[in-house]
């Protein structure tokens, strides 16, 4: 049991010692380790996406009473692989009147930002690339860069659907960033730290979902809007905008956007598991299994909501954030502050 829990940490220690034994200085060995860790992140992301896309198609099929992919392999599990190969071999079409450089770099920029989010996710006990003392803030501020990438895609395509989709997407993401950040503030106040490991340690007795239920609901709604997922998928509303900012993209460039959306989905769910559900803490199973289990359960709720609710009108979406979510999350911060003072005053905590 002990060995299973420490499996990945022992592998990392072994590689580090081996690198030093072949004559690398500690600084360079650290650098090589960092590269290996980033490669691991890329691996985790790729495997995750293959599973997630298959799972989403199966879940949506179940909800809509269809079969979903069922031809390639048992339960259609190789369908995503086949789709990936198809996308890789497709012709890369760049329309002639696009802003070429912006058009080409937008998907790359988008996926780099979503990969950068994984640096602060604690995958297990001590299994985090950097345990920043401002980890939560890092997650929010790097995530806010995604708007630029979508704007680049929408503008570079030189297409009115793309531009309209990008405008909607950016307006929505900027608006919902505020309740997203505010909903996490209550947790930061209770834990007294922005460091992910401190927040997990503060949940060793009680998960924050029990102390901050309102915050979890606002976080969840805001995250759905941040991810541009249904029922808030106005930016790529197929019936009115064909595919929003991604209309002109084909082949692998389009696939990069698609991949980045699922990458973000896992990142947001893993952060939700860390902030509200005790992170990697759990009985019996090793810590590096608990976080994916919790993240996947949260993602199932995302799927369930996406395939159950109809799309919301754009102006309703905006006024919902400004008039409902932001006041609620602000009230939650005040309530949390009063609660912390009451607990200290009564000497319970």
């Amino acid at each position, binding site marked *: 049991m002990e060995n299973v829990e420490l499996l990945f940490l022992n592998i990392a220690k072994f590689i580090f010692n081996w690198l030093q034994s072949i004559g690398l200085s500690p600084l360079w060995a650290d650098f090589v380790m960092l590269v290996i860790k980033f490669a691991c992140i890329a691996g985790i992301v790729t495997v995750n996406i293959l599973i997630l896309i298959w799972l989403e198609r199966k879940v949506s099929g179940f909800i809509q009473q269809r079969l979903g992919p069922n031809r390639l392999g048992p339960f259609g599990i190789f369908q995503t692989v086949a789709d990936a190969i198809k996308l890789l071999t497709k012709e890369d079409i760049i329309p002639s009147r696009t*802003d070429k450089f912006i058009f080409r770099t937008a998907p790359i920029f988008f996926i780099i930002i979503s990969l950068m989010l994984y640096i602060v996710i604690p995958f297990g006990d001590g299994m985090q690339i950097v345990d*920043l003392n401002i980890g939560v803030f890092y997650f929010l501020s790097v995530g806010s860069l995604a708007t630029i990438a979508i704007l680049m895609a929408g503008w570079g395509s030189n297409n009115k659907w793309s531009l309209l989709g990008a405008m909607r997407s950016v307006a929505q993401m900027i608006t919902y960033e505020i309740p997203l950040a505010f909903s996490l503030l209550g947790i930061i106040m209770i834990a007294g730290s922005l460091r992910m490991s401190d927040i997990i340690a503060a949940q060793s007795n009680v998960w924050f979902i029990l102390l901050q239920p309102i915050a979890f609901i606002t976080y969840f709604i805001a995250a759905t809007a941040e991810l541009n997922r249904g029922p808030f998928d106005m930016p790529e509303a197929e019936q009115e905008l064909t595919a929003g900012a991604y209309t002109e993209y084909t082949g692998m460039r389009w696939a990069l956007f698609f991949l980045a959306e699922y990458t973000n989905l896992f990142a947001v769910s893993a952060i939700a598991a860390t902030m509200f559900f005790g992170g990697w803490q759990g009985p019996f199973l090793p810590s590096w299994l608990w976080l994916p289990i919790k993240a996947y359960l949260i993602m199932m709720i995302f799927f369930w909501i996406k395939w159950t609710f109809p799309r919301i009108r754009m102006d309703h979406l905006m006024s919902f954030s400004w008039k409902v979510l932001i006041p609620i999350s602000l009230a939650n911060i005040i309530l949390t502050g009063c609660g912390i003072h009451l607990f200290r005053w009564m000497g319970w905590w």
Partner: protein
Amino acid sequence: MSILDLVFIVTAGITILASIGVVTSKNILHSALFLVLSFLGVATIYFQLNAAFLGLVQIMIYAGAISVLIIFAIMLVMSEDINQSNLTHKKGSFIGVIVAGFFTFLVSISIVSTKFGAVFNNALENPVEDIAVMLMGDFVIAFEVAAILLLVAIVGAIIIAKGAD
């Protein structure tokens, strides 16, 4: 030369090139995107100075919000050919050179006369807490005045845009 020096040279180079790109681009949207790149470059310099919080604030507010505001403003007022939207005017070039030269002169005087006594490696254990204590304790009045000023500016902008009635 250590690896950190190399990182600094590369990021500083990118920042400077991006800043030049802001000025020289013919397309004003390219200028705005170069501006984002230079904001990110400045943020990496903050990270290298162990001021991670400041760097993230730079990313969130400047690269993530202010630049989006600029790009939105450009898109909404754009009507003519985008490739001719950021032209240099020859008329003002003489005065521009004088102003820029004078500014460079002032900045170089202040750089030369400063004794850079800062030690880079004394990163605070928890900078966020110190900043919070400062803002909410010693400088709370200045902080609140700034907040009210911003609120008044926002309300004013809405009234100008939508009309007072």
